[in-house]
């Protein structure tokens, strides 16, 4: 599935919720249920700095696709990470580089991606794209 198609799917899912409570409860559930990263990758090197909640990201190339794993010590942040990973992981680096993140607006989580919000998600997206650029160069 393309990044765009996955994003449309996520927008569809969120359109079923009536209010913020339901959206947040869903995200909290995602945050609780998903083991996102192997412990050995939860290293200080993989921490995105300057955030209130710790965010770890790890990237690995499998064939021609980039697989992301990530985690956070804050559950809401982890829920949003789960959504981002679902959209961006297991995709070709060039597609990740080209992808936009407007779907976060559409599912009512815009405030979490404000560059001034100290939750690390903006830095995390930047990091995902940087990994994609690095691996794209490697693939040639």
């Amino acid at each position, binding site marked *: 599935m393309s990044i765009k198609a996955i994003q449309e799917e996520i927008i569809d899912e969120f359109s079923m919720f009536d209010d913020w*409570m339901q959206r947040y409860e869903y995200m*909290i559930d995602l945050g609780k249920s998903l083991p996102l990263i192997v412990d050995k990758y939860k290293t200080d090197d993989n921490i995105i700095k300057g955030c*209130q*909640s710790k965010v770890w990201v790890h990237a690995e190339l499998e064939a021609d696709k980039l697989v992301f794993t990530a985690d956070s*010590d804050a559950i*809401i*942040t982890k829920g949003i990470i789960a959504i981002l990973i679902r959209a961006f992981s297991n995709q070709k680096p060039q597609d990740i580089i080209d992808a936009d993140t407007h779907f976060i607006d559409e599912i009512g989580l815009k405030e979490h991606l404000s560059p001034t919000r100290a939750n690390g998600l903006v830095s995390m997206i930047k990091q995902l794209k940087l990994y994609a650029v690095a691996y794209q160069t490697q693939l040639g």
Partner: protein
Amino acid sequence: MLKVTNIRNDFPILKREVNGKPLVYLDNAATSQTPQQVIDVITDYYHNYNANIHRGVHALSQEATDKYEEARAIIQRHINAAKPHEVIFTSGTTHSINLVANGFSSLIKKEDEILVSAMEHHSNIVPWQMLCERTGATLKVIPMNQEGELVMKTYHELLSPKTKLVFCNHVSNALGTVNPIEEIIGAAHKVGAAVLIDGAQAAPHIIADVQALDVDFYTISAHKVCGPTGAGMLYGKEEWLKRLPPYQGGGEMIAEVTFEKTTYADLPHKFEAGTPNICGGIAFGAALDYMNHIGFDAIAAYEQELLTYATEQLLSIEGLKIYGTAKEKTSVISFNVEQIHPYDIGTILDKLGIAVRTGHHCAQPIMDFYKIPGTVRASFCFYNTKEEVDTLVAGVKRAKSMLL
């Protein structure tokens, strides 16, 4: 007795909604809200007498200069400084501290020691680290205990003739602890050390009498006392301000300039280079007038009542732990709920219209001491109510049930 309903009417912002809920503003330790009386002073300045000060011959410039100097006199009276020129206008506490730290660069030697408390804001740690890097002096830390109180016994042991400076906040921003600054100042003076007290968090609750305290430097930010951001003051004893070199060069701070030599202006202008935040300074004075009109005794009594009530109510939540349980505290409560990240609680509270601060509160060493990533901090002002405390408690309970 405070008439909270009347007081709340002075603050237009308290009537707004956030996320469809009435705003419950409990982030007063970060910045306090501004009453209409102060907003009117700001508007009046730009409507009627906006001009550059101290240099014009025209009427507007003279009016602005008079008001600015009146504000200095208000601050002088408020802290009971002996002379108006011992009050230096700055952009806030951070600027004040940097001004002093920079000034001491030329007075501190390699073998000297500087003491700083373990519960400082980053703005009262980093400038001294920079000073120590420049001079080779040693920075030593006055430790704190589990309750969030300074270990005074160790403080007295750390003091020696090598100690040249002691820095401490009057009230901790992260924990609300009121520090025993009289004892800190007295003991430091016995070994000949100068003392700077960061009064940013104390100013909204306590009046510091700088002469009675015999403090060498004391700083306040206007935005913590119902004034605007970007304005503040540094009090310094005249003898110290005369000894310290100027911080920034520029207009206003000079007496005479030739390419060979510049002589500096007298106090306070020596430390007030360039066009200052004129409107901010005037509004700072108006904000202190506003708070004094309500009365600091009444404010302190009411806030203690809110603190006691909020502490009891929050502790009724299972798994909630309060950090900072000093005997003497201002109306600040730093807490966590077991197994929940403070950021998550803050996010849910925001959705409920409740503004709190989460994180390390620019006091990372305190968080390291307690081995926590941060806390949720609710800080109360005299315009907050017990009903708002109830809303906070209900909000934390709701967040807990969603997050656990």
